[in-house]
């Protein structure tokens, strides 16, 4: 391999190559950064207490299904997205638990995993009492 910079042609070829690589890297960087999703701040939704049916009220928060479940210890807010593959779990009033229709995951009324592939309990959301409604944030 010849020594670099022994003549003007080699130097200019190298400089041109470096410039092209830097330009391509810059363009890729800008396009890559613009392709990243913009994360939304936590959102809040109001769930009317009059919406309660079988001890549970359903709502939507940032496009995802959520629920307020009234338990003996008080109301609890859950995300209804299964922690396994994000399918929406259903409340089974008879079994007093949540069941996932996709891969057979089961959760109890506290959101703990009872059966199936879910690796973690249902996500709990912040809940505030606001008179005739609850405010869920997550």
């Amino acid at each position, binding site marked *: 391999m010849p020594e670099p910079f022994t003549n003007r042609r080699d130097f200019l070829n190298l400089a041109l190559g470096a410039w092209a690589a830097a330009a391509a890297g810059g363009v890729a960087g800008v396009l890559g950064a613009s392709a990243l999703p913009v994360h939304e701040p936590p959102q809040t939704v109001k769930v009317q207490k009059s919406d309660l049916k079988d001890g549970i009220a359903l709502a939507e928060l940032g496009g995802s299904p959520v629920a307020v479940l009234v338990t003996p210890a008080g109301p609890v807010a859950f995300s209804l997205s299964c922690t396994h*593959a*994000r399918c929406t779990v259903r409340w089974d009033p008879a079994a007093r638990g949540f069941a996932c*229709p996709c891969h057979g995951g089961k959760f109890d009324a506290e959101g703990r995993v009872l059966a199936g*592939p879910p690796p973690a309990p249902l996500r709990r959301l912040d809940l505030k009492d606001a008179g005739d409604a609850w405010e869920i944030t997550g």
Partner: protein
Amino acid sequence: MGDHGLSLLGALADALDRRLGWRERRARAIADLSRPVPPHVGWAYTLGSTALALLVLQIATGIALALHYQPTPEAAHASVAHIQDRVRLGWLVRSAHAWGAHFLVALLLAHAARVFLTGGHKKPRELTWVLGAKLLFITLALAFTGQLLPWSELSYWGAVVGLEQVRITPAVGPAAGDLLAGGPGVGPATLTRFYVLHILLLPALAAALLAAHLALVRRLGIAPLASTAEEDAQGHDALCAGGDPYVPHHILKEAAVAIVAAAALVTAAALWPPELGARAGRTTPPGIRPEWYFLAVYQYLKYWPSTIFGVPGEKFAVCLLIAATTAFAALPFLDRSPERRPARRKLALAVAGCFLFAWTALTLLGSLSENELSLFGHHWRFDTYGRPK
């Protein structure tokens, strides 16, 4: 057309030839394409070109659908319903596009199986195989992204579950999932991104890889059945002695199979158009399952425990899956014996046979799981693992 018209055409052809030199190029191309293929090459060697023909059809029907489709969650489902119900022959175009995906995946799998069986992936055609494997993966990605576009219940929840498998991949998974979905869940940004992938990025990538794949097939020729050592020693041309010329003999076989495949596709499309289904909602419908080509993976993921040493079991499952697909793409570098004749590659065929058996079994279990079957007067119901209840 009279003599005058013919001479006008001839004059135009002459004028273009003086500028482009197309007559000489054409003669050279025909001479090149008329070289013989190896003597054993027959009907089984028409699957790749048939897939190419159906890909062209897929592009044509895709463009026709894109003229009416609207890629927003509010409008997508209604626009596909509009294509089905109002656009002239729209139902047939949509049906042919949906069936085309099934045909294309099946043909590519069969093509890969044929190449593997006859040792076509071996030296010096390793790169042709690697490019072909990537084209298969891109085809599956096209099928996956295309499925979301109607924004129906099945397509929506298929994307949700599929993206979750991407997210669970160690290290790059969460970032890749966010990048693909455009956010934490499947929403308007996901539809836009899948649409761009489906009609722009993946087809462009596929076109580039396909051009390289075909250029390599032309440059290296179709693999003989002789071992790689014999090919090295004697040269490819000597091993093709006595074979049919590619043009016109073999290309006619390819054309015949492509026409039969296209006819079968149009027949299936006309007789069994796919249902659109209900618009995607927030509740997951029971009994959703992926298309047949993803059923084995879908079922395989179910058998893993939810955690192994405190780590989600699916992380291990996905790692093993990535290892398997990487091994498939890198097959020429793993299956290194010089032999090409199936009878002399018993170990390689036995390993491949085990994979085929596992894949078929998982596909069957996946289609039976949470399903019912009536056979010979018996009625069975199956649980999520495919066991009779």
